[in-house]
């Protein structure tokens, strides 16, 4: 009996030991798949960004899986429609995290969505890459652990466009703005106008127009601008709104009368075709252009662009490249964490640790997730529209690529306060210029 008792004690001890060792070991076992939840617009006007973003995500995941997955684990994607609205978005996000047990999320396109989901991701301790939203305030008001932005924000995007304008049209005296009446339209103008006052204080703002989001008609705004004759007209509108504004303004001669600056117009170039005239200044929300001057001979870049065109009928636009960056950040974080963990599958906390200060590459210049605030540092490309042989739309010419660290709000500072410290000399920074096709 005593011997039997000893054997039982031994078995119990071994079981306990295996249990203790087995617990953490099981948590670090490679999962069958790495589940990624992605929020994107699949309905409403912003689907012009959301659908290409989704198509890109599917392409990239398939490509990663073909190569064996991340750390040998294949990716499985789930999508949530941001167009469904706030409450549905939050519920669906919770469902993905708590019921479907996703391992990471990419949220979101809209800054409104990011404002809702970033604190939720933090509460749920969910690794989240803000893959496209641009409001600079999100990461300036609070330090997050689990949320990272894998691209720039509105501040460098607007500063690049402004500096380009100041470098190429230094003598303009008057400016007007026509932006969509919602958070991005207002915030982008605040950034642009605050910096403009610092760098060229003599410029007069002659009209600030904020037509309704989704407005089908800009006749009155155009008439007013034609009567006011500003030297420069800025718009950071996008999608169908931008297309309509450009076409209506072109038909009535306003594009010829004033210098138009399309803050994020890269995404409309292919759609506008010949309706987009030469000479418009165009920003790209990052260094994104399917003929990126430093990447255009890169075989992988060219293959991706062609594959995307074969899948969707169009060359990639900036949200596609932002999606590429989100996947690159995810893969970079896992690879770094696996390496730091001696080749074993990492815990989520280890992946989050690895994401901080991560350097990674999309289809532009190298990027970095700044350790202090998890803000992505992304270069900015701005150019001017120009006709080119072999294209049924305009191309970008006289392209300038701005380094991220020169035009991004320093960590720990608030954008508007930082912009107020800028001086006219700020616009005199050296920036390389690239011609189309060279």
């Amino acid at each position, binding site marked *: 009996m005593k011997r039997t008792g000893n054997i039982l004690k031994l078995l119990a001890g071994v079981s306990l030991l295996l249990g203790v060792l087995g617990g953490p070991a099981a948590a670090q076992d490679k999962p069958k798949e790495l589940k990624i939840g992605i929020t994107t617009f699949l*309905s409403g006007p912003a689907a012009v960004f959301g659908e290409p973003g989704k198509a890109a995500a599917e392409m990239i995941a398939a490509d990663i899986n073909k190569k064996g997955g991340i750390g040998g684990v294949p990716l499985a994607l789930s999508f949530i429609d941001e167009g469904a609205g706030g409450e549905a978005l939050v519920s669906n996000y919770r469902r993905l995290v708590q019921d479907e047990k996703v391992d990471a999320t990419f949220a979101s396109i809209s800054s409104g969505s990011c404002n809702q989901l970033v604190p939720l991701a933090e509460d749920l301790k969910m690794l989240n890459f803000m893959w496209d939203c641009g409001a600079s305030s999100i990461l300036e008001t609070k330090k997050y652990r689990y949320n990272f932005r894998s691209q720039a924000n509105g501040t460098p995007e607007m500063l690049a466009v402004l500096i380009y304008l100041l470098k190429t049209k230094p003598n303009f005296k008057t400016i007007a703005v026509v932006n969509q009446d919602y958070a991005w339209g207002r915030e982008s103008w605040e950034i642009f106008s605050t910096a403009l006052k610092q760098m060229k204080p003599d410029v007069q703002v002659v009209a600030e127009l904020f037509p309704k989001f989704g407005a089908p008609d800009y*006749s*009155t705004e155009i008439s007013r601008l034609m009567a006011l004759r500003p030297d420069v007209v800025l718009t950071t509108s996008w999608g169908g709104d931008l*297309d*309509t504004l450009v076409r*209506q303004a072109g038909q009535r001669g306003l594009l010829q009368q004033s210098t138009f600056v399309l803050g994020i117009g890269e995404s409309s170039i292919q759609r506008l075709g010949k309706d987009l005239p030469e000479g418009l200044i165009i920003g790209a929300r990052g260094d994104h252009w399917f003929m990126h001057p430093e990447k255009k001979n890169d075989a992988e870049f060219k293959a991706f662009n062609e594959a995307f065109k074969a899948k969707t009928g169009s060359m990639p636009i900036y949200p596609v490249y932002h999606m590429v960056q989100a996947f690159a950040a995810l893969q970079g974080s896992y690879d770094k964490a696996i390496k730091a963990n001696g080749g074993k599958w990492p815990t989520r906390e280890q992946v989050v640790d690895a994401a901080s200060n991560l350097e990674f590459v999309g289809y532009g210049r190298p990027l970095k997730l700044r350790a202090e605030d998890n803000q992505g540092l992304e270069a900015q490309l701005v150019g001017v529209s120009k006709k080119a042989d072999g294209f049924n739309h305009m191309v970008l010419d006289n392209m300038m690529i701005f380094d991220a660290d020169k035009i991004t709000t320093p960590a720990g500072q608030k954008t508007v306060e930082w912009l107020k410290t800028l001086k006219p000399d700020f616009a005199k920074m050296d920036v390389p210029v690239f011609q189309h096709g060279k």
Partner: protein
Amino acid sequence: MNSTLFVLASLDGLSYAALVFLVSVGLSLIFGVLRIVNVAHGSLYAFGAYLAATLSLLVTPISPWLTYPALLVASLVIGIVAGGLIERLLLSRVYGREEVLQLLITFAVFMIMDNLQRLIWGVQPIYAAEPLKLLPNVSIFGVSYTSYQVIVLPVVAVLALFGLRYFLRRTLMGSVILAVTEDREAATAIGINAQKVYLITFVIGATLAALGGALASPTTSLVPGMGTEMIVLSFAVAATAGLGQIEGTAITALAIGMARAFVIYLQPEFEVLVPYLIMVAVLLVRPEGLFGATKLRKI
């Protein structure tokens, strides 16, 4: 504001009002006769626009001038086919039922059509400006306007207004529609087929919505959600005028269009609010709308 800006703002307001009127009057007509608030009206507007753009792009290589008949054909196809199907298959089953049920059915149709639109035409903006490009621009006080905007749209709106008036007041079918509107039971008792009247009225209203969309298609990018924007504005116009008021809808559309244009010149911050501020102000004073008649309640 000087006289130049006054003229410019008036022209802008006029072209905007023309499109808004075409859509709102269809909504108002359907409510006046069928007593149904048709939420799917915005989808009919969007379908009219998309089909018109599709047909325009198809016929442009043959002759750009064929794009004008294409606009009309698109309106009629959507009005007759989509409008006819909605009325026959769905609405005809719920006449006389609770208003909330009717509202839910038209809302369901709106949601279905919105998704159908995405399935057929996708989410990328579509633009077919050929009808607009065919006509020359006109210069007024040094400001260039497209003839399409300041001549074609207002003329079509005026023709629609007078055509509708003539149809309802000078033709037998119009008199029949008015009779059913006034007293359905009495009209049915003298042999009028009320079901047929409802079908014809709904098709006319749907065609007007589709015509508004078709005429808008050369001037604007067609995007998902465009029907939502228009239905909200149309409700504001129809409610301000008083549901069922055709001339009232025209005057209200003009007033709202003008007010919006002047606000953009004077105080652009209020542009989005203007139609709804006018609606609230009117409904607070006259709940039945500017031109609506007060109804006696039978006890």
